[in-house]
């Protein structure tokens, strides 16, 4: 098993003819993801690489293909509308890779997606992968392998670093989810932890957080109250100065809240193991399998 995506995932790519969209569509198809349609307004009727039909709207694409998932590679000013278009068309899982979506746009997008009963992952995220089954987004497929570890992270390349260590040590993954580095995102740590808790094949969860906000602290509380499976945590940004945005829009210590120390403390109080370095996941996860 896995969470959110598997062999039944039928994917639409919004922005399939753009530079990033076309590159990653090829990678996803190569990985084995079932890409059923692309959407680029004005290019309806054409095909991508001679195989994937392109539609003008998401609604057309869903009607013609029965797609249940969408991945978004459109530029930031149009990303909010693209997410809402997918939600309105009845897509149940929407993954927004785009970085740089204005946060006020997200205050409108979030309730809209909720009301339409969809799940949004991202924005500003690498997407997710269920190794051997399906990949939606940009996580390099070759660093992953199937196995019993569930992984959830706010980061991209730091996730790759940890997955790479786990895979090399022989510990594969059920699903790796990048929830994104923005202050307002569609899916948080708790959503992923709850899904991993329900997934029979996931035995241990690796959770990679960073400074800013209180999502990790809330997740620690959830672990304490609701999780039977062990969770190993990590927080990036122990050396980050307060008040500065560390690349990710959401990675900022505001006043005295959102520090690495406060998050690590919350993990410890919840009985979680804490990795001090990315490589420490190897021993901490292995001990708990």
């Amino acid at each position, binding site marked *: 098993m896995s969470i959110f995506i598997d062999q039944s995932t039928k994917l639409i790519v919004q922005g399939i003819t753009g530079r990033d969209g076309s590159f990653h569509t090829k990678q996803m198809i190569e990985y084995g993801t079932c890409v059923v349609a692309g959407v680029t307004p004005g290019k309806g009727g054409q095909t991508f690489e001679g195989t994937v039909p392109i539609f003008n709207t998401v609604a057309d694409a869903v009607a013609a293909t029965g797609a249940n998932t969408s991945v978004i590679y459109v530029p930031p000013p149009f990303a909010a509308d693209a997410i809402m278009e997918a939600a309105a068309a009845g897509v149940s899982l929407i993954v927004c890779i785009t970085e740089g979506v204005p946060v006020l746009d997200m205050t409108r997008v979030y*309730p809209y997606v909720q009301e339409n009963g969809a799940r949004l992952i991202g924005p500003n995220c690498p997407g997710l992968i269920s190794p051997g089954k399906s990949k939606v987004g940009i996580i390099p497929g070759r660093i992953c392998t199937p196995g019993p570890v569930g992984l959830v*992270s706010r980061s991209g390349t730091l996730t*790759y670093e940890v997955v790479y260590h786990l895979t090399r040590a022989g510990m594969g993954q059920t699903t790796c989810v990048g929830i994104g580095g923005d202050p307002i995102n569609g899916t948080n740590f708790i959503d992923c932890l709850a899904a991993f808790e329900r997934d029979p094949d996931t035995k241990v969860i690796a959770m990679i957080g960073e400074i800013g906000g*209180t999502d990790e602290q809330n997740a620690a509380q959830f672990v304490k109250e609701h999780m039977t499976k062990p969770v190993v945590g990590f927080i990036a940004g122990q050396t*980050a100065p307060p008040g500065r945005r560390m690349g990710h829009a959401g990675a900022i210590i505001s006043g005295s809240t959102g520090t690495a120390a406060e998050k690590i403390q919350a993990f410890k109080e919840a009985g979680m193991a804490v990795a001090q370095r*990315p*490589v420490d996941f190897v021993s901490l996860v292995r001990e708990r399998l």
Partner: protein
Amino acid sequence: MNIHEYQAKEIFRRHGIPVPPGEVATTPEDAERIARSFGTTVVVKAQVHAGGRGKAGGVKLAKTPADAKAVASQILGMQIKGLTVQRVLVTPAADIATEAYAGIIVDRASKRAVFMVSPAGGIDIEEVAAKTPEKILRLPVDPRYGLLGFEALRMGFFLYPDVKQARAAAKILQQLYAAFTASGASLAEINPLVTTPAGEVLALDAKMVIDDNELDRRPELAALRDDSAEAPSEVAARKANLTFIKLDGNVGCVVNGAGLAMATMDLVKYYGGEPANFLDIGGSSNPEKVVNALRIITADPNVKAILFNIFGGITRTDDVANGIVTATRSNPLTVPIVIRLTGTNEEIAVKILQEHGFSAMTDMDEAVQRAVALATGGKAA
């Protein structure tokens, strides 16, 4: 992006918020001329992107134009939290009866814009929140409807028992919400919101932070950026599309991805070193970015060793290797460099580097330990 008080006040004014008049001076003579034109006691206020200006001596009263000149010459050029004051705002002094606080921020937890108002104004609102939370009213705004009239009035009455003042405050809060959304702000703040002895309600100060992600579609706001108010290295990095934050250590870090960049800094510290910076070259491959990154890092005299940590996903490690070769050919390095590359096109990258006399590592921990040893003058680990 931070904007100055005088710029935020201009935006407030355009949305109808009552703001005292004022003009910006860059020389003491300017300040004197402006003070004379007002013909009354003025306040001279440092325009820098730092809180606590008053405590630092950056806000002063001047009774006469000559006083304004003298005060401005003290404030212009002074350092507040490491920033040099280049401009002052000269504004008529207001008679103040009461001071309140009104602000709006994007709140992560509720995923909405949230108002915060408090009758205890003029001081740090975080302090009020910590010590006397009952003096703060929080009100999340539903983005579908905006700030509703009764909500604004409820906040108005929380600030002022007098109905006229409550209504005046409610109107200001509506206008503040309009200014906030129209500007793509992540914060808009009036501290203090004052009443005068005559009963008027006025925004005496103004602070706005614009969401960087809005600037592409709002060129008129992007034009408000004041490069002189930021560290030169950070301005250079932004123009090169790099995210760079200068720190006090001596290990210069070049990393792809914000999370990995933070984890790399943390690991430098873990192994006994201090990072000189945060630098994210981003996800896409581009040798030019590497050239710019190296130029910015080597300009910092504190840097004693340079550490590259690249995990190639979208980033092609051979592009990074080419960037390192190009950059060091035109500007030979005077400090040692440690390069860790893994992922996409790693074999090609290692070959390119070796051909040019660099060695490459694949393990993050080993690379960090080595860079720390080199920076601290110890032998290579």
